[in-house]
C-alpha cells in the first residue's frame, strides 16, 4: 500500500515537471475528496487494479468515479462485494462442476466444457450494481456497507442461458423457485450461507438471465465470480451469485436469510418510507431504479471561465434502456439535453456527454438526470428506506470556475 501511495505522488510530481495543466487538475481532484470516501485507502487485490477499500475481509472494493466516463468498466476496476468468508481463492476447472438439481427430471453436473459447448453462448451487456450502492449518503444514516457511488460496473457478459440449462434438467410440475449458491462459505455453521433465489416462472420466461463465464472477452476475475456467475440483467447484484456451484429447483417458496429478512424493500411503488420509520410490509428487492452520474470533470475541479468544458458520464436503469440524459446549471430550474453515446442495449450503461460554458467565475453546481424509455426518472429529493437501497436521487458535481 505505501509503495502505491508513493507511486501516486511520483505521478503527481511528473505532472508538475511536465505539464502545468495536468498538475492543476490532479491537485484539484486531490484537494476536493468526497468526504464519504476520505481516509479510505486505495488497495490492489489479485487480478484487480487500485480500488477503494471498504472492507478487507470479506473483501468489499469500490470503483473510483473516474472509471464512469465510459460505458464499459474494465474487469480489473470492477467493484467487489462478498458477504461471507472464506471466499474461494483457488478454482481448478478440472474439479469445478455446476450442479443442477432439486425438483428436476435429470440432475446435471456440468463442466465448464459442457457449459460452453452444450448450450448456445449468448452475449449481453449489463450493469451490475449493488443494492446498497451509495448507502453511505443516506440521511438519516443507516447501518450496512457505507458505499460511495462506485459499487457498480458495466460489462459484456457471455454465457449460457439459465433457461436452456433448466430445460436440459427438466423442471418438474410444481416447481416454485430456483436457488443459486456459490463457493463462498460461512465462517461458522450458524451463519446463513449466501443463497439467493428467483421465481422459476420468471426465469423460464426470461431468456436474458445468463450463467456467464466471460466478462469483457476474458474469464471472470476470481473476485468477480470465476469461473461462472449468474447475470440477472436489470436486477440488483445481490442476485448475480458469484463463483456459482449449485442451482437447485425448489417445490416450496425459498425464504432463507438472504431472501428474507435480508435484501427487502418496502412494499410500495417507491420502495421508500418516511425517514427513520419501519415499513409495514416488505418484498424482495428486484429491478434497479434509474440513475445517472457525471464522472468528468471530477467534482471539486477548477475549470476555465468562458471556455467550454466537456462533461461526461453514464446513465442506466433497470430494464427499459435510457432515452435521455439532461443537465442543469441553475439548481434544477431549467434542463438541457446531452448527447447520448452508442446504444449497447437496454441493460447497459449509456454514455452521455455535453459541452458546458460557464458564464461567470465562482462556484457552480452541475446536476444530471436521466429518463428511461418508459419515462421513469430521478427525484430532486432522496428517497429513504431502512436498509439503504434503491438510491437514485439527482446527482451533481461542484466546479470552481476561474
Amino acid at each position, binding site marked *: 500500500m505505501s509503495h502505491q501511495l508513493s507511486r501516486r505522488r511520483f505521478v503527481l510530481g511528473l505532472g508538475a515537471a511536465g505539464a502545468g495543466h495536468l498538475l492543476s487538475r490532479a491537485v484539484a481532484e486531490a484537494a476536493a475528496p468526497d468526504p464519504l470516501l476520505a481516509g479510505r485507502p486505495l488497495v490492489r487485490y489479485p*487480478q484487480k487494479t487500485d480500488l477503494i*477499500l471498504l*472492507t*478487507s*475481509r470479506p473483501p468489499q472494493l469500490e470503483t473510483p468515479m473516474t472509471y464512469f466516463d465510459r460505458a464499459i468498466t474494465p474487469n480489473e476496476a470492477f467493484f467487489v462485494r462478498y458477504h461471507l468468508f472464506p471466499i474461494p*481463492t483457488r478454482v481448478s476447472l*478440472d474439479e469445478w462442476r455446476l450442479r443442477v438439481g432439486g425438483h428436476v427430471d435429470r440432475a446435471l453436473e456440468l463442466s465448464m466444457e459442457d457449459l460452453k459447448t452444450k448450450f448456445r453462448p449468448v452475449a449481453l451487456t449489463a450493469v451490475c450494481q449493488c443494492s446498497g450502492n451509495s448507502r453511505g449518503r443516506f440521511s438519516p444514516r443507516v*447501518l450496512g456497507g*457505507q458505499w460511495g457511488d462506485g459499487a457498480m460496473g458495466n460489462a459484456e457478459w457471455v454465457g449460457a442461458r439459465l433457461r436452456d440449462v433448466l430445460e436440459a434438467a427438466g423442471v418438474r410440475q410444481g416447481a416454485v423457485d430456483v436457488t443459486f449458491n456459490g463457493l463462498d462459505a460461512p465462517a*461458522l455453521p450458524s451463519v446463513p450461507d449466501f443463497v439467493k433465489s428467483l421465481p422459476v416462472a420468471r426465469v423460464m420466461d426470461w431468456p436474458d438471465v445468463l450463467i456467464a463465464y466471460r466478462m469483457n472477452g476474458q474469464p471472470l476475475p476470481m473476485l468477480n465470480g470465476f469461473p461462472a456467475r449468474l447475470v440477472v440483467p436489470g436486477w440488483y447484484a445481490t442476485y448475480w451469485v458469484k463463483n456459482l456451484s449449485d442451482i437447485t429447483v425448489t417445490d416450496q417458496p425459498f425464504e432463507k436469510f438472504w431472501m428474507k429478512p435480508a435484501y427487502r424493500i418496502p412494499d410500495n411503488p417507491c420502495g421508500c418510507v418516511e425517514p427513520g420509520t419501519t415499513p409495514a410490509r416488505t418484498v424482495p428487492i428486484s429491478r434497479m431504479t434509474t440513475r445517472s452520474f457525471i464522472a468528468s470533470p471530477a467534482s471539486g475541479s477548477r475549470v476555465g471561465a468562458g471556455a467550454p468544458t466537456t462533461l461526461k458520464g453514464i446513465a442506466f436503469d433497470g430494464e427499459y434502456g435510457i432515452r435521455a440524459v439532461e443537465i442543469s446549471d441553475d439548481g434544477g430550474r431549467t434542463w438541457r439535453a446531452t448527447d447520448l453515446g452508442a446504444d449497447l442495449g437496454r441493460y447497459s450503461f449509456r454514455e452521455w456527454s455535453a459541452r458546458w460554458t460557464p458564464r461567470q467565475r465562482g462556484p457552480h453546481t452541475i446536476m444530471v438526470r436521466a429518463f428511461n424509455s418508459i419515462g421513469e426518472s430521478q427525484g430532486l429529493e432522496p428517497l429513504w428506506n431502512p436498509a439503504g437501497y434503491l438510491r437514485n436521487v439527482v446527482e451533481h458535481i461542484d466546479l470552481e470556475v476561474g
Partner: protein
Amino acid sequence: MRTLARALLVGAVLLSHAVVAAAADTVTITLPPDHGALPPGPGMEVTQKACQTCHSTDYIAMQPRGGEAQWRAVVTKMIKVFGAPIPDDDARAIVEYLAREYGPSR
C-alpha cells in the same frame, strides 16, 4: 538433424501451450491481510476476538457512529442472527467498548 530440431520445436510449442492451458484452467489468488486496527481501550481485545471470527474490524470502523442502543442492536444481531458464540459478559464489554470508541460524541 533438421527433423530433430523441428520435432523439438513442435514439442516445445505443445508443451508451452499445455502450460498456458493448465495455467488458465486453475486460478489461484492470495488475499492481502486484514486492514486496520481497533483503537486501544478497555474491551478492545474481547471485541477484536469476537468480531474477527467472521470479518475484519474495518466493518466496525465504517459504520455510522452511534450510542449504546445502536451497538447493542448490532451485537445482538451478530449473536441471534449469525450465531456468534459470545458470552453475555463479553457482549456487554463489547457494547461498552464500541459505544465509547465509536459513539456519537467523538
